[in-house]
């Protein structure tokens, strides 16, 4: 018998019928809530199972629902609806603004909103996220001013980063949002270092790292898990598995690995796998992992199962590499639809209220967008001092940068 390389490919390509038949969707309650120490539980079960709360009818059931308790009350549900709807309004308007040439670049997170929203709602002030560009909803759920958010997208005077970074590469220390790099993976291990500082200075704060399925392939993913395993700092390491990395399906990053969560096992790190489109499961799992970190039981790996319903970015056209209707076939559905159904069942929401809310959020974003655009767009840019680019490279401008500024003529 001869040796042949394995070249992995997704279950469906353009023209094929979307196929998730290999994807096992467990019922809520299949996995009990383990003790925070996570001792004596079978790691394999949690790293390969799927934690869920909402059943197909939109009822909250099972041990994780019980564990969530009041943190999943009506108010929490409404906050979730608000975050997600607001995010979708922003995505819609900004995608459009980019198409109109008003901003250089944009990137939507459609279909993944429940994860960042629910996780952020369980954090405390002073905790720090190390997000990817796909998690702006962390800022929404932290009530970051829309004006700053849009200002950064428009790279004008309202941009807290003075146009230095790409749109969507936000930084908001006061809102627990670390400066995004753009280099994949690098910040995952930094979140571990930040958490180490939390423990060393005993400030009772925690850190959260974020990475995509594709970027789990990066060396920094290993660096982060290794460091977390060696020093056990208060960090939650989130893996957002949205099935795609630009045109590359998650199987190229997982290889023959069963799940991404399972990577944690080899490092002796508790790892759980969660339905990321189930807002209540997100709240419950986040509550558990954050409590573990806060109480000093150490790191947790969470693989969030979701689906990147939108294109990778405004530079991408997914129809070239996956079936058009694959999102509809995604077994875990849409997080907003599912939360909406649950809210209506709870009697705190209605179709009408929903439609009305959608309009309200679009209006709110439009409003802010108008203000922000008044300060400049790509078509009609705000003037910025050329010499400004020499600021902030170092705390004090060194002689050679001053010479260059003079040479520049400003």
């Amino acid at each position, binding site marked *: 018998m001869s040796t042949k390389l394995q070249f992995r490919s997704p279950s469906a390509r353009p023209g094929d019928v979307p196929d998730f038949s290999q994807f096992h969707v467990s019922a809520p309650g299949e996995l009990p809530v383990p003790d925070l120490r996570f001792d004596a539980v079978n790691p394999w079960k949690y790293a390969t199972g799927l934690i869920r709360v909402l059943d197909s009818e939109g009822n909250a059931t099972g041990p994780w629902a019980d564990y969530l308790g009041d943190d999943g009350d009506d108010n929490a549900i409404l906050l979730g609806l608000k975050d997600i709807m607001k995010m979708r309004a922003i995505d819609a308007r900004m995608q459009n603004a980019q198409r109109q040439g008003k901003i250089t*670049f944009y990137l939507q997170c459609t279909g993944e909103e429940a994860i960042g929203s629910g996780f952020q709602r369980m954090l405390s002030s002073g905790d720090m996220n190390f997000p990817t560009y796909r998690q702006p909803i962390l800022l929404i759920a932290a009530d970051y001013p829309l004006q700053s958010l849009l200002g950064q997208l428009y790279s004008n005077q309202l941009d807290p980063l003075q146009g230095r970074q*790409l749109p969507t590469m936000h930084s908001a220390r006061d809102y627990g949002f670390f400066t995004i790099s753009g280099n994949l993976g690098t910040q995952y291990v930094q979140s571990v270092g930040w958490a180490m500082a939390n423990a060393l200075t005993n400030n009772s704060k925690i850190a959260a790292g974020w990475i995509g399925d594709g970027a789990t392939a990066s060396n920094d993913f290993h660096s982060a898990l290794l460091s977390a395993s060696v020093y056990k700092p208060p960090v939650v390491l989130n893996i957002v598995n949205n099935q795609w990395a630009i045109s590359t399906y998650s199987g190229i990053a997982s290889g023959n690995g069963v799940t991404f969560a399972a990577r944690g096992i080899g490092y002796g790190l508790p790892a759980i796998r969660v339905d990321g489109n189930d807002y209540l499961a997100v709240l419950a799992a986040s509550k558990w992992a954050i409590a573990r970190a806060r109480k000093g039981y150490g790191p947790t790996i969470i693989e969030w199962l979701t689906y990147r319903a939108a294109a990778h970015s405004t530079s991408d056209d997914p129809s070239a590499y996956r079936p058009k209707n694959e999102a509809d076939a995604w077994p875990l559905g849409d997080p907003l639809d599912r939360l909406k159904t649950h809210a209506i069942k709870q009697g705190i929401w209605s179709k009408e209220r929903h439609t009305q809310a959608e309009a309200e959020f679009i209006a709110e974003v439009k409003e802010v967008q108008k203000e922000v655009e008044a300060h400049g767009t790509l078509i009609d840019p705000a003037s*910025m001092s050329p010499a400004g680019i020499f600021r902030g490279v170092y705390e004090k401008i060194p002689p*050679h940068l001053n010479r260059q500024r003079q040479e520049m003529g400003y």
Partner: protein
Amino acid sequence: MTNMTMIEAIRSAMDVMLDSDPGVVVMGQDVGYFGGVFRCTSGLQEKYGTPRVFDTPINESAIVGMAIGMAAQGMKPCVEMQFADYVFPAFDQITQEAARIRHRSNGQFSCPMVIRMPTGGGIYGGQTHSQSPEALFTHVAGLKVVQPSTPRDAKGLLIAAMNDPDPVIFLEPKRIYNGPFYGDHSAESIGWGSHPGGDVEDDLFTIPLGKADIRRAGNEVTILCYGTMVYVAERATEKTGIDAEIIDLRSLLPLDLDTITASIKKTGRCVVVHEATRTSGFGAELIAEIQEACFYHLEAPVQRVTGWDVPYPHAQEWDYFPGPDRVSRAMRRALEA
């Protein structure tokens, strides 16, 4: 002869090499089924099959590490870094391994591989899609470093690089992938159709590494440049009306010092232009060699026009970008002196 964009020319180079040499494999992020985010490998997997052209995980270090193993056995991997900004995770594998395997094994093993990467800014890519790291690689003994400025050069140089017995860093100036860029982003973009450099032989041909190209003969000042900056220099020459000799280096390591010194001994003046940050950029190396080789012929200090020593800005990238005005000013300084 077909008129091609630089993307098509690069694809054509890999195409003819895949066709003529079974040892050639093409690998990188999104290069397989999809054909690469800049489409440089579009259609190649379909034509040559997955074992020849395939997707890799997002791990630049693993990509280069695997390629080194393949090359050491005699294959000719041509790997793509999605952006030059993302080559740094592979810096160890490239500088400590690929560059040294031939030497430290006394020739028992070698590393005939090419690492392609889109480089340079001017596309509003911000600090992580705009960098020009060429100087870093020129400091590493064992590597060769190449950057084309036309579709024809891109194909000829890439084929030469893929046939080279040693590892080659192949930098692709993404700003001119689809047409020459003369430094004015408000001007409407033009394609390669009208440019002679866009006419490319259809089959296999090579342009030797280590040979510069005199893009414009002139007597008043020598301009040393490569990639996008060649067109910026051309525009500055038009603007100033100065009779400049524009030399497209094409190959930074090895460097065509003979062509450079011959020109400067003629003009006595020189302007060095690159988009990378200034301190320890490749311009410094050029100046060091020039002042040694042409000291008594130089009538004025060699002028450096480069990106400023700051991270590549997003909104203000045109304040960073070394455009025709800055090159023109430098040319005048070189002449006034």
